[in-house]
C-alpha cells in the first residue's frame, strides 16, 4: 500500500466515524419530539386566543417623528402612473406618492388637496379650481396649473389618443376644454352636466409636465417614470419598487401639507390573506386588510387593533336575461327571479360565509351612500314556502325527479364565479343547496378571473354569474344597469334593459341638484327591487388590522386604499 492510499484510508475512516456517529442518533426520538411540538403549538395558540383582548389606540401621547410603517397586501401593484392605473393596489401606492386636485374624507365628502377651493358655474358645465400657492414637486420645481392641464390632457386630448389610459372613455366624453388663465387657476369645461364629475374625476394624482411633457403618447405608455416616478407631489416620494416584493416610499419634505411624521412607508406583497394575518401577528407588517374568515384568529393578539366598517362594495349574482342565450328563457319571468331570491337565507349566509362581517342587502345602493334607501318597494326576507308557491304559480312544477319544469324545460342552470375567492365559492355552494331545496337544479362552476371577466363583458354564454362590485362615492350605477352598457365591453353583460331605469339614471347624471338626484335614485332602487335582474346578496365590510404602535390612522368606508387624507399625520410610538 502506498502512502497516498494510506492517507486516503485515514480520510475515509474519519468520514466513516462521522457517518457512524451521525447515524446512531435516535431518529425516532427526534421525529417524535418534533411531532409532539407541532401538536402542542396548535394547542398553545388556541389557549393564547382565549386569554387576551384587543387594545385601543393611544391618543394622549405626543407625536414622535421618524420611523417606518410596513403595510401588507396580497396583490402586487401594476403601475405608479395615476393616469394608467385602474386597479386598487396601484391606486393605493399612487395615493402615497401623489395628490390630486381633491381628496375625500372617510364619509366620502370631497375635500381640497392640490386645489384649495373650487367653484361650479350656475349651468353646471364649468369647474374653476384655485390651486394652492407655492406648491413644489419633490425635485423643487413649482407645481402649477400647467401640470394639472397636462395630467388631464393625457386622458382627453386627441393628441394623446395612443396613451393607454383607462380614463379616456369618460374624460374624452365629458371634458370639452381646460384653460389655465394663470398659474394657479384651472378652468375645466364639460360637454354636458355630469353629476359624478367632481367626486369621480377630481382626484387623479397630478403628473409633472416638466418630466413627461416632452414625450409622445406611445413613449409614455412604457416610460421609465411609470415604474420609477422620480418626482411626485404627495406626502411621500418614491424610493424603490422590487417587483413582487415591496414598494418603498420615503418622506417628501417639500409636501405642501408639511412633511409627514414617518420616514418611510413600505407596501409589502404577501402570498395570501392568511399570510396577512400571520404577519400582523408577528409584527412583520403593521397594517393590513383582514379577511372575514381570519378575523377571529386575531382576537388573541394584543398588538393588533382591528377596525371594521361597511364599505360601498356589494356581492351580487346576475341572471342571464338575453332570451337568445341558452338560459335566457328561464329568467324572463320576474316571478322566477324573485322566487329564487326568496329562497336564499342571506342572513345565515352572512353569518356562516362572512362570519358576520357583512350586511344583508335590501337595496342596490350601498348603505354608505347618501342616496341609500333602506326599505325599497319589495323586500326579500328568507321565505322558502313563498318561493315554492311563486314558482308553482308561475307554472314551474316539480317533476318526478324533484326538479321543476315548465313546458318541457327544466329549471336547471350553471352558476359561475372566479376560483380562489372563498366567500364567492361558498356562496355558490350554499345557493346550490338552497335552490335544490325548492326543486331548482343549479350547479356551481369556478373559472379563472380572466375567463369570468370575458364572460361578463364579451362572450356572455353564462347562465348565472356571481361577482362583487366596488363603487365610488357617487351613487351612479349606470355602468352595471344602464342598457347602453349591454354593448360588448360593457358590464351589463346580463342584458338588463329597462327604459324606465335608463331614463332615471340619465336624468340623475344630468343634474347637480342632490335632493333631486336622491329622489331619482330612490325610484331606481324601488324598480330594481321589483325587477331583481341581478340581486344583491350583501354589502361587505372593510376590516383593517393595525399594529398598536401605529397612531393616527383613520380607516373608513371611503378612506381605505387610495384616499387617506390622514397619511402625513401617521406616526409610530417607538419611532422605529
Amino acid at each position, binding site marked *: 500500500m502506498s502512502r497516498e492510499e494510506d492517507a486516503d484510508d485515514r480520510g475515509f475512516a474519519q468520514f466513516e466515524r462521522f457517518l457512524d456517529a451521525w447515524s446512531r442518533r435516535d431518529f425516532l426520538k427526534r421525529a417524535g419530539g418534533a411531532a409532539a411540538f407541532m401538536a402542542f403549538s396548535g394547542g398553545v395558540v388556541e389557549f393564547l386566543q382565549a386569554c387576551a383582548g384587543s387594545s385601543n389606540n393611544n391618543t394622549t401621547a405626543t407625536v414622535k417623528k421618524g420611523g417606518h410603517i410596513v403595510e401588507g397586501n396580497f396583490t402586487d401593484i401594476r403601475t405608479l402612473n395615476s393616469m394608467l392605473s385602474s386597479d386598487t393596489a396601484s391606486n393605493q401606492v399612487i395615493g402615497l406618492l401623489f395628490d390630486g386636485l381633491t381628496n375625500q374624507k372617510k364619509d366620502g365628502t370631497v375635500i381640497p388637496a392640490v386645489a384649495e377651493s373650487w367653484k361650479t358655474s350656475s349651468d353646471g358645465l364649468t369647474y374653476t379650481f384655485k390651486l394652492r400657492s407655492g406648491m413644489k414637486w419633490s425635485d423643487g420645481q413649482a407645481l402649477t396649473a400647467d401640470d394639472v392641464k397636462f395630467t388631464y390632457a393625457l386622458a382627453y386630448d386627441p393628441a394623446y389618443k395612443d396613451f393607454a389610459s383607462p380614463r379616456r372613455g369618460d374624460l374624452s366624453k365629458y371634458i370639452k376644454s381646460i384653460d389655465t388663465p394663470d398659474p394657479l387657476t384651472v378652468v375645466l369645461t364639460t360637454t354636458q352636466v355630469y353629476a359624478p364629475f367632481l367626486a369621480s374625476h377630481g382626484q387623479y394624482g397630478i403628473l409633472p409636465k416638466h418630466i413627461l411633457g416632452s414625450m409622445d403618447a406611445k413613449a409614455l405608455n412604457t416610460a421609465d417614470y411609470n415604474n420609477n416616478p422620480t418626482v411626485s407631489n404627495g406626502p411621500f416620494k418614491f424610493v424603490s419598487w422590487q417587483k413582487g416584493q415591496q414598494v418603498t416610499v420615503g418622506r417628501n419634505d417639500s409636501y405642501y401639507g408639511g412633511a409627514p411624521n414617518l420616514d418611510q412607508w413600505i407596501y409589502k406583497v404577501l402570498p395570501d390573506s*392568511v399570510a396577512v394575518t400571520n404577519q400582523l401577528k408577528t409584527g412583520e407588517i403593521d397594517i393590513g386588510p383582514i*379577511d372575514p374568515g381570519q378575523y377571529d384568529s386575531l382576537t388573541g393578539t394584543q398588538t393588533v387593533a382591528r377596525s371594521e366598517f361597511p364599505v360601498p362594495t356589494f356581492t351580487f349574482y346576475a341572471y342571464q336575461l338575453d332570451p337568445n342565450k341558452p338560459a335566457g328563457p328561464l329568467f324572463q319571468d320576474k316571478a322566477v327571479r324573485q322566487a329564487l331570491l326568496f329562497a336564499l337565507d342571506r342572513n345565515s349566509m352572512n353569518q356562516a360565509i362572512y362570519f358576520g362581517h357583512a350586511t344583508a342587502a335590501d337595496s342596490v345602493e350601498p348603505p354608505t351612500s347618501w342616496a341609500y334607501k333602506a326599505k325599497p318597494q319589495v323586500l326579500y326576507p328568507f321565505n322558502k314556502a313563498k318561493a315554492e308557491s311563486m314558482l308553482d304559480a308561475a307554472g314551474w312544477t316539480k317533476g318526478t325527479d324533484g326538479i321543476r319544469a315548465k313546458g318541457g324545460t327544466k329549471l336547471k342552470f350553471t352558476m359561475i364565479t372566479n376560483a380562489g375567492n372563498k366567500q364567492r365559492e361558498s356562496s355558490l355552494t*350554499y345557493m346550490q343547496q338552497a335552490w335544490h331545496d325548492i326543486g331548482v337544479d343549479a350547479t*356551481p362552476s369556478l373559472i379563472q378571473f380572466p375567463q369570468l371577466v370575458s364572460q361578463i363583458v364579451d362572450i356572455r354564454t353564462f347562465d348565472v354569474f356571481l361577482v362583487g362590485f366596488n363603487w365610488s362615492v357617487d351613487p351612479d350605477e349606470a355602468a352595471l344597469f344602464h342598457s347602453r352598457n349591454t354593448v360588448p365591453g360593457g358590464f351589463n353583460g346580463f342584458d338588463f334593459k329597462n327604459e324606465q331605469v335608463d331614463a332615471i339614471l340619465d336624468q340623475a347624471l344630468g343634474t347637480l341638484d342632490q335632493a333631486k338626484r336622491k329622489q331619482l335614485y330612490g325610484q331606481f332602487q324601488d324598480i330594481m327591487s321589483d325587477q331583481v335582474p341581478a340581486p344583491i346578496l350583501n354589502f361587505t365590510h372593510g376590516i383593517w388590522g393595525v399594529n398598536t404602535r401605529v397612531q393616527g390612522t383613520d380607516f373608513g368606508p371611503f378612506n381605505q386604499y387610495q384616499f387617506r387624507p390622514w397619511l402625513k399625520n401617521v406616526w409610530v410610538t417607538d419611532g422605529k
Partner: protein
Amino acid sequence: MIGPSRVAELETTGAAIDTAEGRPAQSYWNESWQRLRTNPIGMIAGALILIFAVIAILAPVFSAVLTHFQPQSVDLSATFRPPGGAHLLGTDELGRDTLTRLIWGGRVTLGIAFLTVGMALTVGTAFGMAAGYYGGWIDDILMRLVDTVLAIPAIFLFILMSILIHPTPITLAAIIASVGWGSVARLVRGEVLSVKQRDFIMATRSIGARDFRLMFRHLLPNVLPVLIVAASLGVGQIILIEAALDFLGLGIQPPTPSWGNMLTNAESYFFHSVYLVYFPGVMIFVTVLASNVFGNAIRDAFDPRLKT
C-alpha cells in the same frame, strides 16, 4: 414535483429477467410474489391502498349507510362542529360532514391517481415499445416527440391547460398524464432495447412471428415488472401533484371534494378549527406513503439483487 418519475426510471432499468422462453417464467412471478409476501410492511402498504380504493368505489354506499350525508349537503346551522356525535369527524365551514367529504374526496383523488397512471402507462408503453422495437427512423421521430414533451416546463402546461380545460377529475387526469407519459416511454424503450438483444426474440422473428404478437406475447411481459413498479410509485406522486394543483387553485374546484382542496381549504381555519386540517392531511400522507412503500417493496421483490 415532476422529477421523481425519472428516479423510478433510473432505478429500475436493467432489472432484466432471463428465461428460456423469452417470457418471464411462471416461477419468476411466483418467486417475486413469495418475496413480496415475506415483506410485512410492503404487504400492509398494499392492503391499505386496496382498502382505500374499495372505500372510494363504494362511496355512495358509505354515504347512505354510514354517514347519512351527501358531500354537497350544506347546513349553515351546523358549521365547524368538532368530531363526534352525528358528524363522526365534524363539519366544515358550511356544515358539510367531513367524513362524507373525505370518502368522496378519496374517490376523486384516488380516481385521478389511478386514471392518470393508467393513461400515462398506456400511451407511454405504446410509444416506448414501438420506438424500441422498430428502431431506426421510427425510434428517432417518436423519441424526439418524447423529448419535446419532456422539455415543456410542466407547470406552464398545467396552468394553461387547467385554464383551458375546466378541471374535472377526468380532464385533470388527462392533463397530468399528458406530461407524465414521456418518461414512461423512455423507460419502456430502454427495457425493450435490452430485451430485444436476446436470442429468443431474434429466433421468434426469424420463424416469422408477427410484430404485434411479438410485442404483446414476448416484449410486454418482460416490461411488465418495470411498469408495475412505476405504476405503484406513480400513484403517490400523482396524489401529491394533484394536491399541489389544488393548492394553486388549478386542480379540482370546490364544491367537488378532493383531499387536496379539502386540505387547502382548511388552511384558513388552522387557528379556528384545527381538526379540519388533520383528516385530509393524514389521508394524503398515509396514501402517498403506502404507495411509495408498496412500490419499493414490489421492486425489491422483482429484483432480489438489491436486497439480500
